[in-house]
């Protein structure tokens, strides 16, 4: 019942609904890329710098090396979405662990955890990501981990706040008096109750991670085997005088995807706090 009410509230939010539909379309395009564009997207297929619409076979034109923009865009969606999702997962894992421990145990654990949060807010995050990626190597999973490492602090703060609010509630005390261990209480009793707002935040972290990844790739430090959207923008920047569409198109793709993820996050947030909607 509660779940249906939640979905109903979410679906009534037009922005969130539109965002979900578009993200599903992007995800579908990403998944079906090998079907529609089975050849390597980084292969030259036509004359370079064809403007969008100039040749119907290449609706989004070709880049400076004569590669099909549409094919690259669709294949790039895979990389961009995957990195966003996994980096957010890493951030959520770290953030929830740190936040849960801090909020549940309090004391010096809390103090240490909050100092760590402060520390990671102090380090200029993108510079840190670049350093990690260069030192450990520009591979997909290093990028994912690096972005996760700089994105966990808001999740830790929120998880901690939720745990602080929940840890002294009756049901938790009941479990404690029944002799349930700390780990069991954290994972089985408190976490499920603390999770909804954390999930909302995670969806926003996906958006942030996509922006991070695009910046890393734009700067040319991404995985050289993957043409993510950020790298496409970076590849096109030398040609902005003649063919600015090469930069514009993948950038629009990033913006639309991030925009939709933000809309979904806002929609989830509103659906979680129905009180705020009536204002």
């Amino acid at each position, binding site marked *: 019942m509660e779940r249906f009410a939640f979905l109903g509230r979410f679906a009534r939010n037009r922005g969130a609904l539109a965002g979900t539909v578009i993200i599903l379309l992007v995800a579908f395009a990403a998944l079906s890329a090998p079907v529609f564009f089975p050849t390597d997207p980084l292969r030259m297929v036509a004359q370079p710098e064809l403007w969008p619409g100039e040749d119907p076979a290449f609706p989004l034109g070709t880049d400076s090396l004569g590669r099909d923009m549409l094919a690259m865009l669709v294949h790039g969606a895979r990389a961009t979405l995957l990195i966003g999702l996994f980096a957010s997962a890493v951030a959520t894992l770290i953030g929830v662990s740190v936040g849960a421990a801090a909020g549940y145990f309090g004391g010096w654990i809390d103090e240490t955890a909050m*100092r*760590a949060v*402060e*520390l990671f*807010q*102090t*380090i*200029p*995050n*993108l*510079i*840190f990501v*670049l*350093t*990690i990626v*260069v*030192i*450990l*190597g520009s591979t997909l999973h290093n990028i994912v981990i690096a972005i996760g490492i700089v994105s966990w602090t808001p999740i830790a703060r929120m998880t901690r706040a939720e745990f602080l609010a929940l840890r002294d509630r009756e049901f938790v005390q009941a479990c404690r008096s029944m002799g349930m261990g700390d780990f069991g209480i954290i994972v089985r009793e408190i976490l499920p109750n603390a999770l909804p707002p954390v999930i909302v935040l995670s969806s926003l972290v996906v*958006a942030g991670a996509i*922006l991070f990844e*695009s*910046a890393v790739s*734009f*700067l040319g*430090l991404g995985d050289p085997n993957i043409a993510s959207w*950020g790298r496409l*923008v970076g590849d096109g*920047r030398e040609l*902005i*005088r003649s063919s*600015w569409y090469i*930069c*514009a198109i993948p*950038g629009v793709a*990033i*913006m*639309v995807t*991030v*925009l939709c993820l*933000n*809309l979904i996050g806002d929609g989830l947030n509103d659906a979680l706090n129905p009180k705020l909607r009536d*204002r």
Partner: protein
Amino acid sequence: MASTSGSSRRNAALRLLKRRLLQAIPLMLGVVVINFVLIHLAPGSFLELMTAENQVSDPATVELLRKTYGLDDPVWLQLVKYIWALMHLDFGFSYRQNMPVLDAIWVGLPATLLLMISSITLAFVIGVAAGVVASAKVRTVWDTAVSVAAMFFFAAPSFWLGIMMIVLFAVKLGWLPVSGMETIGGGGGVLDILHHLILPTLALGLFYAATYARVMRSSMLEVAQLDFVRTARAKGLSRRRVTLSHVLRNALLPVVTILGVQMGTILAGSVVIESVFSWPGVGSLLFDSVSSRNYPVVLGIMVLGSLVVIAANIAVDLIYMWLDPRIEIR
């Protein structure tokens, strides 16, 4: 009963300053340790990388490097030595630039700080103004326009926004320079720099302006519901007066908090924008050092960058304290 004279608030501010500076010490230690350890995680020996990347082959120089970096010592001793050196403002020597690391960073730091400060100022002014307008005209075309604009700028990657603005304002319209900080030859005046500053500032600042506009709008609406707003209206003050002299200051508090949290992000973001606009800041030095694995410089940039963030955070704390007299220092 707290005393309320100006001098007591000044004392409170000094106490805050002292506490924040004390807290900064372990924070800086953390920054140094994390980055130091990270660099030592690098595959291959530090020395091999350094010598290979910097094309040093002369055995005497290699030996000198080994000595100066104390590379025969255990890692923890190297860390202690590095920290000891840092405390004496010795960030090491960069063979690539052939100058001390600190000097190399010092060259670009003013440009980076200029970009950072102008972006924060722009973001704050535009964001707050847009949020106030949207909340004053809530559920009108104005409100929608602000929300939509905020939504877009909140989602647009800053580097892409920068490139698109170069295309429109520099290439197509020719109003503003494409890149750099000064006109080559004959440039250098304050106006010239400001002229070059416009696009990078917009590219970096608009994302944060969008953030602040959203926060400011909801904060204004929330504060407008509070009792003291009704009291002010009962005194015969106009809606506008009440908004400007009572609601605004209270509503600014959450925006200032967020500003503090985002300092590190803004500094890092300026590095990307510097690359887009060939802005002569620390950014290019960072890329060069990162890709040539010139670790002393990378570490130095991290340490100095964190120092800038900490200083900015202290400034934000003082502003917050000035805005909200309820903040008492323990």
